[in-house]
């Protein structure tokens, strides 16, 4: 299983590298591109965990949908001016300190409880027919949340249109 683990570390490197570059770039388009790198890394991780359907949805919706939306808005909104200004706000030191404290805390707990985690033996079998299983779960157990999610999307569409339109 060395190869298997090796892929995990590579994907982790891609995800974290992409993430760090995402939040440090001056140019928002570059940020979006490194976001794509992270997203594709996460999709690879999903494949690695045998969540194939989710991996495809991740690429389809995130990379093909949300990122394109971001790029669209970045092009509509002129960011040349913004790229020349100061990139970080004034309380960045405080924010960083708090976040590191949080990380230390969570990391400590995770490290202490590391032995209680292990992959289920049957996970490979379960995920054989990944698409069907997700469909059954989505349209069976979680039908109500599914409908609510569709409603959420509808509201989001209307909200976005209302806000972005010049005159209504």
């Amino acid at each position, binding site marked *: 299983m060395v190869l298997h683990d090796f892929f995990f570390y590579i994907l982790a490197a891609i995800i974290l590298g992409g993430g760090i570059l995402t939040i440090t770039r001056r140019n928002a388009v*570059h940020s979006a591109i490194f976001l794509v790198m992270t997203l594709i890394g996460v999709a690879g991780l999903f494949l690695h965990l045998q969540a194939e*359907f989710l991996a*495809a949805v991740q*690429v*389809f919706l995130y*990379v093909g949908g949300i990122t394109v939306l971001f*790029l*669209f808005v970045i092009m509509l909104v002129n960011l040349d001016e913004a790229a020349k200004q100061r990139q970080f706000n004034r309380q960045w030191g405080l924010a960083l300190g708090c976040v590191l404290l949080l990380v230390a805390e969570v990391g400590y707990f995770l490290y202490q409880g590391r032995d209680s985690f292990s992959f289920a033996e049957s996970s490979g079998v379960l995920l054989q027919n990944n698409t069907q299983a997700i469909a059954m779960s989505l349209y069976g157990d979680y039908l109500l949340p599914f409908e609510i999610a569709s409603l959420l999307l509808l509201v989001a569409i209307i909200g976005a249109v209302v806000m972005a339109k010049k005159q209504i």
Partner: protein
Amino acid sequence: MAELLATIESYLQLPYVLPTLYIVIIIAVFPLIAGYIVLLERKVMADIQARLGPMRVGPHGLLQPLADAVKLLLKEDLIPAKADWLLFWLAPVISVVAALVAFSVVPFSDWFFITDTNIGLLFILSISSVGILGIILGGWSSNSSYPLLGALRSTAQMVSYEVALGFAIIGGLMVAGTLSMQEIVRAQQEQHVWFIFYQPLAFCIYAVAAMAETNRSPFDMPEAESEIVAGYHTEYSGFRFSLYFLAEYTNIVIVSSIAITLFLGGWLRPFPNVEWLDFLNYCPAVAMLAIAAMSFLGAVREKRWMEQVGMGGLGAVFALLGLLFLLPPVLTAVQGLFWFLLKVFLIVYGFIWIRFTFPRYRYDQLMKLGWHWLIPLAIANIIVTGIVMVLL
């Protein structure tokens, strides 16, 4: 000798060997095929427009793609001074990679495919949606007005038509009951029907949306040369331009492959379950021999001896192939591949035909067609299909 064959066979049994071999074959051969699709397009265009088309390089211009490739590779590689060079460099690569990766689940025949996952079709859709990034970044990074306008138009068009495309595909998927490309073809074999007969509306919507998705005329708004010069690749030249070109033609083949797999029986021959039509199995051999005969006839009519030799050689190659295909094991092996490629050829021909027949839509008309007609129709199609499937 037998030992060697045994060794080779044992290697071929290894899990990654065959797919890797196919990947190499596809990546190596496909640019050439794309070049010949361009030649086909130019020849068909010339025929429709009462001209001859390329005639100079090789007999009947058959070597034109090679000449074009050399020309494009040797062109100066221009990057506009104020362009974002990293993205300018990356954008065509994204386009090409996204287009070529989609081949990994295309079932060329019952044995010639790289992989067959249970999300095959969804995989192609998601990968081709990554290709949009290549276009939008290419337009933006050029730092010029026309490419930016072209990229915005292109993206809006592709995102809109992706919805219609997805809904049309769902119609076919409901009948097939699987996302795996091989299983879809097998389902058509088991149900004794091509899904185009169950889902004619979905096929029509798919065809229109696919044309828009690949930016082909009459939906070639992003490249409308009378309005916005050349759209998102205005600033590209030489090799990078050829990458965009390759991506465009790859996408055409990909959308044709989806249409064929989902609606037109994939690598199955027409009427695969009707026994008295088994003589159709000899079509590959007959087609090769027919091409050979036509090449020989053409060789006789050529004036220059070089071209006579060229056409004659071509005829000889095809005649040999035809004779080879007459061997039963070879015939069985090429059967699926032949029908798949024949169907791809016919659909690509249709694309070209439409391009040189119709005027171009206006941008608002295009959006209206997509949102007012195709998407509602596709949704209605899904609902009707669902009701019918529940009732039966």
